Protein backbone atom coordinates (compact mmCIF):
# COMPACT_ATOMS: atom_id res chain seq x y z
CA UNK A 1 0.00 0.00 0.00
CA UNK A 2 1.40 3.41 -0.98
CA UNK A 3 1.58 6.33 1.45
CA UNK A 4 -1.32 7.97 -0.35
CA UNK A 5 -3.45 4.81 -0.11
CA UNK A 6 -2.59 4.42 3.57
CA UNK A 7 -3.58 8.03 4.30
CA UNK A 8 -6.85 7.59 2.40
CA UNK A 9 -7.59 4.40 4.35
CA UNK A 10 -6.95 6.12 7.70
CA UNK A 11 -9.08 9.05 6.61
CA UNK A 12 -11.91 6.69 5.67
CA UNK A 13 -11.67 4.89 9.03
CA UNK A 14 -11.75 8.19 10.91
CA UNK A 15 -14.80 9.36 8.98
CA UNK A 16 -16.55 6.05 9.71
CA UNK A 17 -15.85 6.48 13.44
CA UNK A 18 -17.21 10.03 13.37
CA UNK A 19 -20.31 8.92 11.50
CA UNK A 20 -20.90 6.12 14.01
CA UNK A 21 -20.60 8.63 16.88
CA UNK A 22 -23.08 10.95 15.17
CA UNK A 23 -25.58 8.09 14.79
CA UNK A 24 -25.20 7.18 18.47
CA UNK A 25 -25.74 10.82 19.47
CA UNK A 26 -28.76 11.03 17.18
CA UNK A 27 -30.31 7.91 18.72
CA UNK A 28 -29.75 9.29 22.22
CA UNK A 29 -31.25 12.64 21.27
CA UNK A 30 -34.34 10.96 19.81
CA UNK A 31 -34.85 8.94 22.97
CA UNK A 32 -34.26 11.91 25.29
CA UNK A 33 -36.50 14.27 23.34
CA UNK A 34 -39.37 11.78 23.26
CA UNK A 35 -39.00 11.19 27.01
CA UNK A 36 -38.93 14.91 27.84
CA UNK A 37 -41.88 15.82 25.61
CA UNK A 38 -44.12 12.99 26.78
CA UNK A 39 -43.45 13.48 30.49
CA UNK A 40 -45.55 16.63 30.99
CA UNK A 41 -48.32 15.32 28.73
CA UNK A 42 -48.56 12.11 30.71
CA UNK A 43 -48.48 13.96 34.04
CA UNK A 44 -51.38 16.15 32.90
CA UNK A 45 -53.33 13.08 31.73
CA UNK A 46 -52.65 11.34 35.03
CA UNK A 47 -53.96 14.38 36.96
CA UNK A 48 -57.18 14.30 34.95
CA UNK A 49 -57.42 10.56 35.51
CA UNK A 50 -57.37 11.18 39.29
CA UNK A 51 -60.21 13.71 39.04
CA UNK A 52 -62.38 11.57 36.74
CA UNK A 53 -62.35 8.77 39.33
CA UNK A 54 -64.55 10.87 41.58
CA UNK A 55 -68.22 9.98 41.51
CA UNK A 56 -69.48 13.40 42.69
CA UNK A 57 -68.73 15.37 39.52
CA UNK A 58 -71.54 17.42 37.93
CA UNK A 59 -73.20 16.03 34.80
CA UNK A 60 -71.03 16.43 31.75
CA UNK A 61 -67.90 17.41 33.66
CA UNK A 62 -66.59 13.86 33.92
CA UNK A 63 -67.12 13.24 30.20
CA UNK A 64 -65.40 16.53 29.36
CA UNK A 65 -62.40 15.76 31.55
CA UNK A 66 -62.15 12.22 30.18
CA UNK A 67 -62.17 13.70 26.71
CA UNK A 68 -59.32 16.05 27.67
CA UNK A 69 -57.40 13.10 29.16
CA UNK A 70 -57.91 11.10 25.98
CA UNK A 71 -56.60 13.98 23.84
CA UNK A 72 -53.52 14.40 26.01
CA UNK A 73 -52.72 10.71 25.75
CA UNK A 74 -53.31 10.91 22.01
CA UNK A 75 -50.80 13.74 21.74
CA UNK A 76 -48.35 11.69 23.80
CA UNK A 77 -48.82 8.81 21.36
CA UNK A 78 -48.22 11.15 18.43
CA UNK A 79 -44.94 12.30 19.94
CA UNK A 80 -43.93 8.67 20.41
CA UNK A 81 -44.91 7.83 16.82
CA UNK A 82 -42.89 10.73 15.48
CA UNK A 83 -39.73 9.71 17.29
CA UNK A 84 -40.25 5.99 16.68
CA UNK A 85 -40.54 6.70 12.96
CA UNK A 86 -37.30 8.65 13.05
CA UNK A 87 -35.59 5.81 14.92
CA UNK A 88 -36.92 3.20 12.50
CA UNK A 89 -35.70 5.29 9.57
CA UNK A 90 -32.26 5.32 11.18
CA UNK A 91 -32.40 1.61 11.99
CA UNK A 92 -31.99 2.53 15.66
CA UNK A 93 -34.95 0.66 17.09
CA UNK A 94 -35.35 -2.50 19.13
CA UNK A 95 -38.46 -4.38 20.21
CA UNK A 96 -38.87 -5.52 23.80
CA UNK A 97 -40.20 -9.05 23.45
CA UNK A 98 -42.21 -10.67 26.25
CA UNK A 99 -43.42 -14.26 26.45
CA UNK A 100 -47.07 -15.24 27.02
CA UNK A 101 -48.61 -11.90 26.07
CA UNK A 102 -52.42 -12.28 26.09
CA UNK A 103 -53.34 -10.86 22.69
CA UNK A 104 -57.09 -11.36 23.27
CA UNK A 105 -56.84 -9.08 26.32
CA UNK A 106 -55.14 -6.37 24.26
CA UNK A 107 -57.93 -6.60 21.69
CA UNK A 108 -60.66 -6.47 24.35
CA UNK A 109 -59.04 -3.43 26.06
CA UNK A 110 -58.92 -1.48 22.82
CA UNK A 111 -62.43 -2.45 21.80
CA UNK A 112 -63.70 -1.31 25.20
CA UNK A 113 -61.86 1.99 24.82
CA UNK A 114 -63.28 2.81 21.39
CA UNK A 115 -66.77 1.45 22.01
CA UNK A 116 -67.34 4.54 24.19
CA UNK A 117 -66.48 6.84 21.27
CA UNK A 118 -69.61 8.83 20.27
CA UNK A 119 -68.74 8.37 16.58
CA UNK A 120 -68.92 4.61 16.86
CA UNK A 121 -72.28 2.99 16.25
CA UNK A 122 -71.14 -0.55 16.87
CA UNK A 123 -67.82 -2.15 17.66
CA UNK A 124 -67.87 -5.90 17.78
CA UNK A 125 -65.01 -7.95 19.09
CA UNK A 126 -64.95 -11.55 18.00
CA UNK A 127 -62.00 -13.33 19.55
CA UNK A 128 -62.41 -16.94 18.45
CA UNK A 129 -59.66 -18.08 20.76
CA UNK A 130 -57.46 -16.95 23.58
CA UNK A 131 -54.19 -16.16 21.86
CA UNK A 132 -50.91 -15.83 23.73
CA UNK A 133 -47.73 -14.97 21.90
CA UNK A 134 -44.16 -13.80 22.34
CA UNK A 135 -44.08 -10.19 21.18
CA UNK A 136 -43.60 -6.58 22.25
CA UNK A 137 -46.86 -6.03 24.10
CA UNK A 138 -46.79 -2.23 24.01
CA UNK A 139 -45.92 -2.07 20.33
CA UNK A 140 -48.59 -4.54 19.24
CA UNK A 141 -51.10 -2.68 21.38
CA UNK A 142 -49.94 0.50 19.65
CA UNK A 143 -50.50 -1.09 16.23
CA UNK A 144 -53.98 -2.47 16.99
CA UNK A 145 -54.99 0.79 18.64
CA UNK A 146 -53.83 2.74 15.63
CA UNK A 147 -55.80 0.59 13.19
CA UNK A 148 -59.00 0.66 15.29
CA UNK A 149 -58.57 4.40 15.88
CA UNK A 150 -58.36 5.01 12.13
CA UNK A 151 -61.47 2.91 11.55
CA UNK A 152 -63.36 4.96 14.14
CA UNK A 153 -62.08 8.29 12.83
CA UNK A 154 -62.23 7.90 9.04
CA UNK A 155 -65.86 7.08 8.39
CA UNK A 156 -68.48 8.45 6.01
CA UNK A 157 -69.36 11.90 7.32
CA UNK A 158 -73.09 11.22 7.64
CA UNK A 159 -72.71 7.82 9.27
CA UNK A 160 -71.30 6.35 12.46
CA UNK A 161 -68.51 3.79 12.35
CA UNK A 162 -69.34 0.11 12.37
CA UNK A 163 -66.23 -1.86 13.22
CA UNK A 164 -65.61 -5.56 13.67
CA UNK A 165 -62.40 -6.75 15.31
CA UNK A 166 -61.66 -10.43 14.87
CA UNK A 167 -58.89 -12.48 16.37
CA UNK A 168 -58.21 -15.96 15.14
CA UNK A 169 -55.53 -18.56 14.61
CA UNK A 170 -54.29 -19.30 11.09
CA UNK A 171 -52.10 -22.27 11.94
CA UNK A 172 -49.59 -23.31 14.60
CA UNK A 173 -47.23 -20.51 13.59
CA UNK A 174 -49.43 -17.46 12.90
CA UNK A 175 -52.53 -15.65 14.13
CA UNK A 176 -54.49 -12.71 12.71
CA UNK A 177 -56.19 -9.62 14.05
CA UNK A 178 -58.69 -8.32 11.48
CA UNK A 179 -60.22 -4.85 11.71
CA UNK A 180 -63.11 -4.32 9.30
CA UNK A 181 -64.91 -0.96 9.02
CA UNK A 182 -67.24 -1.82 6.13
CA UNK A 183 -69.81 -0.65 5.08
CA UNK A 184 -69.59 2.80 6.73
CA UNK A 185 -65.86 3.33 6.23
CA UNK A 186 -64.32 5.75 3.75
CA UNK A 187 -62.42 3.11 1.84
CA UNK A 188 -59.53 3.82 -0.49
CA UNK A 189 -59.06 4.11 -4.23
CA UNK A 190 -56.53 1.93 -6.10
CA UNK A 191 -54.22 4.93 -6.26
CA UNK A 192 -54.50 5.37 -2.49
CA UNK A 193 -53.69 1.70 -1.93
CA UNK A 194 -50.63 1.90 -4.16
CA UNK A 195 -49.37 4.97 -2.31
CA UNK A 196 -50.05 3.27 1.04
CA UNK A 197 -48.16 0.14 0.03
CA UNK A 198 -45.22 2.17 -1.28
CA UNK A 199 -44.47 3.14 2.33
CA UNK A 200 -44.40 6.93 1.91
CA UNK A 201 -44.21 8.63 5.32
CA UNK A 202 -46.83 11.35 5.91
CA UNK A 203 -48.98 9.96 3.10
CA UNK A 204 -52.74 10.21 3.71
CA UNK A 205 -55.67 9.14 1.55
CA UNK A 206 -57.34 12.09 -0.19
CA UNK A 207 -60.75 11.24 1.25
CA UNK A 208 -59.28 11.02 4.75
CA UNK A 209 -57.89 14.57 4.58
CA UNK A 210 -61.40 15.93 4.21
CA UNK A 211 -62.72 14.05 7.26
CA UNK A 212 -60.18 14.45 10.05
CA UNK A 213 -56.72 15.76 10.86
CA UNK A 214 -53.78 13.40 11.10
CA UNK A 215 -50.08 13.03 10.41
CA UNK A 216 -49.96 9.86 8.34
CA UNK A 217 -47.30 8.52 10.69
CA UNK A 218 -49.37 5.84 12.39
CA UNK A 219 -50.04 3.72 9.29
CA UNK A 220 -46.42 3.45 8.19
CA UNK A 221 -45.16 3.03 11.75
CA UNK A 222 -47.66 0.20 12.31
CA UNK A 223 -46.48 -1.53 9.15
CA UNK A 224 -42.84 -1.30 10.20
CA UNK A 225 -43.54 -2.48 13.76
CA UNK A 226 -45.45 -5.52 12.51
CA UNK A 227 -42.74 -6.33 9.96
CA UNK A 228 -40.09 -6.04 12.67
CA UNK A 229 -42.17 -8.52 14.67
CA UNK A 230 -41.97 -11.01 11.82
CA UNK A 231 -45.49 -10.35 10.53
CA UNK A 232 -47.28 -8.31 7.88
CA UNK A 233 -50.23 -5.94 7.48
CA UNK A 234 -52.56 -6.42 4.53
CA UNK A 235 -55.14 -3.92 3.29
CA UNK A 236 -58.25 -4.66 1.24
CA UNK A 237 -60.36 -1.65 0.43
CA UNK A 238 -63.27 -0.40 -1.63
CA UNK A 239 -63.76 3.32 -2.02
CA UNK A 240 -66.95 4.52 -0.32
CA UNK A 241 -67.43 1.21 1.49
CA UNK A 242 -64.52 0.64 3.83
CA UNK A 243 -61.27 -1.15 4.52
CA UNK A 244 -60.35 -4.51 5.98
CA UNK A 245 -56.97 -4.47 7.70
CA UNK A 246 -55.37 -7.81 8.51
CA UNK A 247 -52.51 -7.86 11.02
CA UNK A 248 -50.79 -11.23 10.68
CA UNK A 249 -48.26 -12.12 13.38
CA UNK A 250 -46.25 -15.14 14.44
CA UNK A 251 -46.72 -16.65 17.89
CA UNK A 252 -42.98 -16.48 18.35
CA UNK A 253 -41.15 -13.68 16.57
CA UNK A 254 -37.68 -13.87 15.19
CA UNK A 255 -37.05 -10.13 15.02
CA UNK A 256 -34.57 -8.65 12.61
CA UNK A 257 -33.45 -5.98 15.06
Amino acid sequence: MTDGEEAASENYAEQSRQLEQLLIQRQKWLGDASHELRGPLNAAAMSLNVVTRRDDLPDGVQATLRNAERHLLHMSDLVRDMFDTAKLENDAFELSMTADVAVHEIVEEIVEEFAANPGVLSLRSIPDHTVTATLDRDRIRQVVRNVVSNAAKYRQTDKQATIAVLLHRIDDAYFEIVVDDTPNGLGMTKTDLEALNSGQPFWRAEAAKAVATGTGLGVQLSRKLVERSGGEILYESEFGVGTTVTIRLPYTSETDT
Partner: protein
Amino acid sequence: MFGRNKNRSKQDHLILLVDDDKGQLDVFATWMAAIRPNAHIRSTTSVEEALNLITTHTFSLIISDYSMPHPGAGLDLFEAAIQSGISKSNFIMLSGTTDNLPDEIRLVSKGDLVALETAIEQVLT
Protein backbone atom coordinates in the same frame (compact mmCIF):
# COMPACT_ATOMS: atom_id res chain seq x y z
CA MET B 1 -41.94 6.43 58.14
CA PHE B 2 -42.47 2.77 57.46
CA GLY B 3 -39.91 0.29 58.63
CA ARG B 4 -39.84 -3.43 57.93
CA ASN B 5 -43.17 -4.81 59.05
CA LYS B 6 -43.91 -8.42 58.19
CA ASN B 7 -47.38 -8.18 59.82
CA ARG B 8 -48.73 -5.69 57.31
CA SER B 9 -52.21 -6.65 56.09
CA LYS B 10 -52.95 -7.61 52.50
CA GLN B 11 -54.35 -4.16 51.74
CA ASP B 12 -51.57 -2.41 53.61
CA HIS B 13 -48.99 -2.46 50.85
CA LEU B 14 -45.84 -0.37 50.91
CA ILE B 15 -45.11 1.08 47.49
CA LEU B 16 -42.02 2.98 46.32
CA LEU B 17 -42.22 5.44 43.42
CA VAL B 18 -39.02 6.79 41.85
CA ASP B 19 -38.80 9.55 39.26
CA ASP B 20 -36.24 12.32 39.04
CA ASP B 21 -38.87 14.82 37.90
CA LYS B 22 -40.46 16.18 41.10
CA GLY B 23 -43.57 17.54 39.39
CA GLN B 24 -44.30 14.26 37.62
CA LEU B 25 -43.50 12.27 40.75
CA ASP B 26 -46.03 14.26 42.81
CA VAL B 27 -48.73 13.68 40.21
CA PHE B 28 -47.82 10.00 40.10
CA ALA B 29 -48.07 9.71 43.92
CA THR B 30 -51.48 11.42 43.86
CA TRP B 31 -52.67 9.02 41.15
CA MET B 32 -51.35 6.03 43.07
CA ALA B 33 -53.18 7.18 46.21
CA ALA B 34 -56.38 7.42 44.16
CA ILE B 35 -56.17 3.88 42.79
CA ARG B 36 -54.68 2.34 45.96
CA PRO B 37 -56.14 4.35 48.86
CA ASN B 38 -55.02 1.80 51.48
CA ALA B 39 -51.42 1.64 50.37
CA HIS B 40 -48.51 3.42 52.03
CA ILE B 41 -46.68 5.32 49.35
CA ARG B 42 -43.07 6.47 49.50
CA SER B 43 -41.69 8.57 46.71
CA THR B 44 -38.28 9.94 45.92
CA THR B 45 -36.55 11.81 43.13
CA SER B 46 -33.18 10.40 44.13
CA VAL B 47 -31.87 7.06 42.93
CA GLU B 48 -29.44 7.07 45.88
CA GLU B 49 -32.26 7.54 48.37
CA ALA B 50 -34.24 4.80 46.62
CA LEU B 51 -31.25 2.46 46.92
CA ASN B 52 -31.12 3.20 50.66
CA LEU B 53 -34.86 2.71 51.09
CA ILE B 54 -34.89 -0.73 49.47
CA THR B 55 -32.25 -1.94 51.91
CA THR B 56 -34.20 -0.77 54.96
CA HIS B 57 -37.81 -1.42 53.92
CA THR B 58 -39.82 -4.27 52.45
CA PHE B 59 -41.72 -2.94 49.48
CA SER B 60 -44.63 -4.81 47.91
CA LEU B 61 -44.08 -2.87 44.71
CA ILE B 62 -41.46 -0.55 43.22
CA ILE B 63 -42.28 1.60 40.21
CA SER B 64 -39.37 3.46 38.70
CA ASP B 65 -38.70 5.70 35.76
CA TYR B 66 -36.02 4.35 33.44
CA SER B 67 -34.21 7.59 32.57
CA MET B 68 -33.23 9.52 35.72
CA PRO B 69 -31.81 11.49 34.02
CA HIS B 70 -29.54 9.17 32.05
CA PRO B 71 -31.06 6.01 30.51
CA GLY B 72 -30.13 3.05 32.67
CA ALA B 73 -30.46 4.62 36.13
CA GLY B 74 -33.71 2.69 36.54
CA LEU B 75 -31.86 -0.46 35.55
CA ASP B 76 -29.33 0.09 38.37
CA LEU B 77 -32.22 0.38 40.80
CA PHE B 78 -33.84 -2.77 39.41
CA GLU B 79 -30.66 -4.78 39.91
CA ALA B 80 -30.20 -3.44 43.45
CA ALA B 81 -33.81 -4.27 44.27
CA ILE B 82 -33.39 -7.85 43.06
CA GLN B 83 -30.21 -8.21 45.12
CA SER B 84 -32.08 -7.00 48.20
CA GLY B 85 -34.60 -9.83 47.75
CA ILE B 86 -37.47 -8.18 45.88
CA SER B 87 -39.09 -10.36 43.24
CA LYS B 88 -38.53 -9.27 39.64
CA SER B 89 -42.27 -9.31 39.08
CA ASN B 90 -42.75 -6.73 41.86
CA PHE B 91 -40.75 -4.12 39.98
CA ILE B 92 -42.37 -2.05 37.22
CA MET B 93 -40.24 0.10 34.93
CA LEU B 94 -41.77 3.12 33.25
CA SER B 95 -40.28 4.29 30.01
CA GLY B 96 -41.14 6.37 26.99
CA THR B 97 -39.07 3.97 24.94
CA THR B 98 -38.69 0.19 24.88
CA ASP B 99 -35.13 0.20 23.64
CA ASN B 100 -32.49 -2.05 25.13
CA LEU B 101 -34.33 -3.30 28.21
CA PRO B 102 -33.87 -6.92 29.34
CA ASP B 103 -36.95 -9.11 28.77
CA GLU B 104 -37.13 -9.98 32.47
CA ILE B 105 -38.17 -6.44 33.35
CA ARG B 106 -41.87 -5.66 33.53
CA LEU B 107 -41.99 -2.58 31.31
CA VAL B 108 -44.95 -0.23 31.03
CA SER B 109 -44.99 2.58 28.52
CA LYS B 110 -45.25 5.99 30.17
CA GLY B 111 -48.74 7.29 29.57
CA ASP B 112 -50.39 3.89 29.24
CA LEU B 113 -52.47 4.23 32.40
CA VAL B 114 -54.60 1.18 31.61
CA ALA B 115 -51.52 -1.02 31.28
CA LEU B 116 -50.00 0.48 34.42
CA GLU B 117 -53.11 -0.07 36.52
CA THR B 118 -53.37 -3.64 35.21
CA ALA B 119 -49.73 -4.31 36.08
CA ILE B 120 -50.21 -2.87 39.59
CA GLU B 121 -53.27 -5.06 40.15
CA GLN B 122 -51.32 -8.12 39.03
CA VAL B 123 -48.51 -7.39 41.46
CA LEU B 124 -50.64 -6.53 44.49
CA THR B 125 -53.34 -9.20 44.25
